[in-house]
């Protein structure tokens, strides 16, 4: 009621609003903008520093006082790609993480749909058990997995990493997508059935498009989990299936840290995640506001 009245008294454009009200509004806007700027600086400055360091020559990176203007060089990337096998690691990472994210998404969404929609005996327990897998600290399972991988000839293969990353992503996908599915009113699917759809048509024409915001949000997070995973990658690979985090870690040696190469690895690792987040952005925003705009 009070908001209605306020809207009525002060029409858009604030033409008829009193001066004090306009000043208050402007003050609030300036304050909010400053706060946003501050937060952005805190988050973005380290990233800026990393990107510039990646293009600095070895001496410039650690120079004090810091050098703000410098001649960019690709030396760090050359070292990363040629000496440390960064390109192969990038390929490995893309394959392992890409496949495992897709698998987790497909299997997880199906499980989530079933848990949300069908009357399954003890489905709450099932859902909880799925979540419990996620609660297990990775360090607990890494040794047994190492032994198993050795025994079955899976050590240093894509298969073992894909399997582990899929399993790691699954609980997250199941829980998030279950909630998203529950948010879709059942009557929408039933309306489609009545309107003449087969069950499969309902899935592809109605349910999946409605799940997209959820799927987009989930894919970014699951991808990031697997993309940044280090422990399993370092323990279960040696050369063939080595992923980017392992290579990035090599740049940090006990006695010397090659800051430039390390930064180059950081840039390389962050690019796919940023691209993915930008691609999914449209859906991410919808995903975050899902409860607000839904009927």
């Amino acid at each position, binding site marked *: 009621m009070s908001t209605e009245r306020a809207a009525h008294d002060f029409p858009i454009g604030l033409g008829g609003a009193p001066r004090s009200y306009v000043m208050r509004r402007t003050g609030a806007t300036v304050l909010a903008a400053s706060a946003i700027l501050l937060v952005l600086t805190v988050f973005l400055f380290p990233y800026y520093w990393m990107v510039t360091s990646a293009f600095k020559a070895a001496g410039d990176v650690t120079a004090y006082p810091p050098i703000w203007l410098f001649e960019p060089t690709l030396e760090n990337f050359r070292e990363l790609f040629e000496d440390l096998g960064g390109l192969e690691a990038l390929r490995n990472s893309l394959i392992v993480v890409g496949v495992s994210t897709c698998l987790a998404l497909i299997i997880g969404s199906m499980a989530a749909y079933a848990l949300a929609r069908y009357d399954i005996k003890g489905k709450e327990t099932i859902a909880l058990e799925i979540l419990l897998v996620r609660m297990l600290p990775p360090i607990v399972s890494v040794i047994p997995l190492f032994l198993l991988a050795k025994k079955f000839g899976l050590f240093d293969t894509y298969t073992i990493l894909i399997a582990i990353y899929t399993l790691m992503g699954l609980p997250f996908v199941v829980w998030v997508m279950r909630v998203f599915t529950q948010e879709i009113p059942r*009557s929408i699917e*039933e309306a489609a*059935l*009545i*309107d*003449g759809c087969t069950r499969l048509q309902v899935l592809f024409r109605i349910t999946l498009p409605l799940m997209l915001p959820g799927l987009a949000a989930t894919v970014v997070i699951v991808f990031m989990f697997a993309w940044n995973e280090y422990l399993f990658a370092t323990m279960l690979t040696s050369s063939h299936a080595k992923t980017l985090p392992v290579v990035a870690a090599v740049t940090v040696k006990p006695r010397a840290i090659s800051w430039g190469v390390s930064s180059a690895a950081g840039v390389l690792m962050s690019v796919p995640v940023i691209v993915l987040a930008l691609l999914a952005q449209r859906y991410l925003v919808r995903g975050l506001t899902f409860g607000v705009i*839904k*009927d």
Partner: protein
Amino acid sequence: MGVRLEGLKKRFGRVAAVRGISLTIEDGEFFVLLGPSGCGKTTTLRMIGGLEVPSEGRVFIDGRDVTYLEPRQRNVAMVFQDYGLYPHMLVRENIAFPLKIQGTGKAERSRRVEEVAQRLHISGLLKRRPGQLSGGEKQRVSLARALVRNPSLFLMDEPLSNLDAKLRITMRSEIKRLVSELGITTVYVTHDQIEAMAMASRIGVMDEGLMTQVGTPLEIYDHPANAFVAQFIGAPPMNMFNATLKADGSFEVSPRFLGRIVAPGRLAKIRPSDAPRELWIGVRPENIHLESGGGRRNGTALVELVEPLGQDTYIYLDSDGVKMIAVTKRTSFAVGDSVRLRIEEGDVHLLDKATGENLLPDRAASNPSSCPHTS
């Protein structure tokens, strides 16, 4: 297209939602399934539409056994309580969706969407998304989507219950006019007895998974088959007074003056039994007439509360410690007044307390499935 249900039952685990319903709905009829929440009316509707598979029994639409057919094989349209619109499609796409699935051509689709939108006065909304519509507009879109494909049967699941009171009355008459213009058989579920009375050509009252009574609105109102129907239909509900019919034929009722109204002749129709029989005497609030003068058979009561609602006035009364409610037009009676009550003999219902059965139903429908269609 008529609908026939034969011994329809539905169990969810251990819960029996529908416990055996047989019913014939004639072609072109506006049939309302009425009952309190949890009585199985929506489940029955969903079984007709194919959204639930019956545990037992059969469903026939236009003489064809559709019990195990998918919804899309039944050519029924349904309007849902929460509208069931597709949020990711424009209003135009929502309405055209059933036609698109049928494979109707684009030009024909667009022509029919325009036509039905005009009929429902939503032509201006076609480019919006469901999220941008008000409740009433959403309901119109959902009706349009149901109408656009010329269904053989119309199913409506409490379509008005999410709308505000004023809009509900407008939409109520609009739906009734629309459906009667098109002559499509309609099954309509509601828990609102006023809505049912206003819209139905026949009502089926359901309780605890069973069809309690089927009849025209006035048949059900005037001749309720049992205590449940008597109390469920009518607002405020029927007054129920405790009475005992003793083995020797004598009759006790409270308040006592009712004993002078119920003629001994009517009681004689009830088969005497050895044990005393507990009864209810039911009187509709509008059949309790308040007078200032007194007749021989009249009772007295004290006015406890007066609710002037404008059109009607609800008067809460106390007679010999028994509470009752009367409905009159405007009145000058005030709290604390002593009034005389007049009740006509023909307005009294006698109901068995143990079984709920109406002992003098006059011409109440006793067999739901064979009740003739009167419109």
